[in-house]
């Protein structure tokens, strides 16, 4: 579903991703853990082209991201094509980024209606269903500022799901939340994983990673230090750096 091959990314002279290679199978849940500044967000943002990569290639659903191949050359895509690639990838941000001038329902509806040009009535019905599914059936007409952090993040998840994505990206979806609100968001994500959504999740919730992830990848200094099933990476880490990190967060 997602494949990274020797991906490099620089910010100026700072090499933030150093030749990263890995694969995410369909229906797989990959959790990325690692210390601050290790490049987790950057890696995630490269998948839906919020950042451009400087080397290697990323494929999503069998198609190279951001470029088309033609007679031995890579051609940059038109912004319109990039937008189309993004519509199949849902993204959930650390600080929600809901549109504050729209109600929860409008937030969920806006993109299918305006980008996909779907019928309003159909979208609305689907959006109401999604909001009920994330437990917000009674909050549909509230504006984001009238919702708690946990509720906002659940609206954001519903908003991403409304585009019927093949793949969901989560960038520390719970780290801006009060501790008692973390659970409600993680529950929604667990359900999603159980339904077979392919997910890449950057998280500090080691418990969630252990329970839900098929694969856990530990990143440090722009490289994937080790990856494998949670029992191995979290339960029996092979590298000293992983052990040091886990001893701090567990």
């Amino acid at each position: 579903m997602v494949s990274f091959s020797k991906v490099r990314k620089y910010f100026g002279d700072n090499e933030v991703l150093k030749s990263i290679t890995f694969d995410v199978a369909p229906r797989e849940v990959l959790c990325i853990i690692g210390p601050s500044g290790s490049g987790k967000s950057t890696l995630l943002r490269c998948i839906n082209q919020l950042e451009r990569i400087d080397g290697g290639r990323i494929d999503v659903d069998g198609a190279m991201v951001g470029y088309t191949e033609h007679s031995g050359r890579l051609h940059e895509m038109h912004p319109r094509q990039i937008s189309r690639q993004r519509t199949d990838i849902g993204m959930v941000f650390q600080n929600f980024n809901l549109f504050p001038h729209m109600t929860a329902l409008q937030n969920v509806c806006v993109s299918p209606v305006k980008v996909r040009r779907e019928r309003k009535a159909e979208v609305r019905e689907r959006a109401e269903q999604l909001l009920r599914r994330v437990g917000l059936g009674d909050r549909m007409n509230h504006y984001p500022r009238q919702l708690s952090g946990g509720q906002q993040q659940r609206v954001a998840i519903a908003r991403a799901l409304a585009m019927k994505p093949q793949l969901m990206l989560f960038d520390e979806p719970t780290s801006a939340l009060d501790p008692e609100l973390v659970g409600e968001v993680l529950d929604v994500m667990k359900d999603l994983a159980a339904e077979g959504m392919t997910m890449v999740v950057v998280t500090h919730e080691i418990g969630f990673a252990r329970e839900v992830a098929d694969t856990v990848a530990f990143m440090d200094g722009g490289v994937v230090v080790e990856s494998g099933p949670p029992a191995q990476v979290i339960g029996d880490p092979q590298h000293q750096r992983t052990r040091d990190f886990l001893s701090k967060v567990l």
Partner: protein
Amino acid sequence: MSTDVSSGAETKAPPPLHLGEAPTVGLKHPSRWIAVLVVFVLAAMAVHSAITNPNFRWDLVGDYFWAAPIMDGLRVTLTLTVICMAIGLVLGTALALMRLSPNPVLRSAAFGYVWLLRGVPLLVQLIVWYNLSALYPRLSLGIPFGPEFVSFESNHVITAYTAAILGLGLNQAAYMAEIIRAGLQSVDEGQLEAASALGMGRLRTMMTVVLPQAMRVILPPTGNETITMLKQTSLVSVVAVADLLYSTQLIYAKNFQTIPLLIMACIWYLIIISLLSVGQYYLERHFKRGSSRQQHKSLWQHLRRTAALRRDTSALGTEGSTPR
């Protein structure tokens, strides 16, 4: 507590009073009443003198209020304001987008435009447009440095009226560009990322996500600009366009009733500005939606709620309620 032996021990203490249940005595504010009195007396004096002083000639104010030349002038003032604000908005938005563009040539071009048109006095700009024919006797449409398709005498195209529109509109665009740029920049970058991640293109993001939020920042100064523009249109009298003020001047130049006629013009300006302010209030409220935790109420709902609260508290026996 325990030192006081004489009282409290045998007499049962009354239950503690609760706000909203027991009668409440409001704090008196004598100084506020004095201030209110002073203001009222001063206002009454002003109104009294304006009414009783025959030199104000209120009869003339009434006579000319609906006079034909005044109506024509009013129409010119209003159309100029609308057209020039429209030019300012459209061109200003384009300039603001250029200022924020990644292309350095566009950025500098917009910067240069704003620098020049904000820097040169408006009066000079109006005169230059009016006298454009002195600089360019003929204007033509065609391929740059190539053949011409049509050409005109500048004097035919640039009438006093078009000169006024060009001068005011192009100048306004420079100011609007800065206001709109500030508005666009006030929108959080996360909003752009969220829109991109949802597959919105640049234009779609601008229209559905950025502009509606930027409006909260753009509208108040734009209201100011509109009011300024309304009065600024009186500058066009230098190129002999008969706006409201100039039409008024033409009349008192003949009958020498300067003050009554100026009062009449001012009343018209105040009426229009009051209407504009009402429009601005509702526009601002529309774009404020979702911006606070409270549901917004209209002014009318607000007044009714306050009145209802007053009734509730006075029913409970509030004494000495004071103006707040």
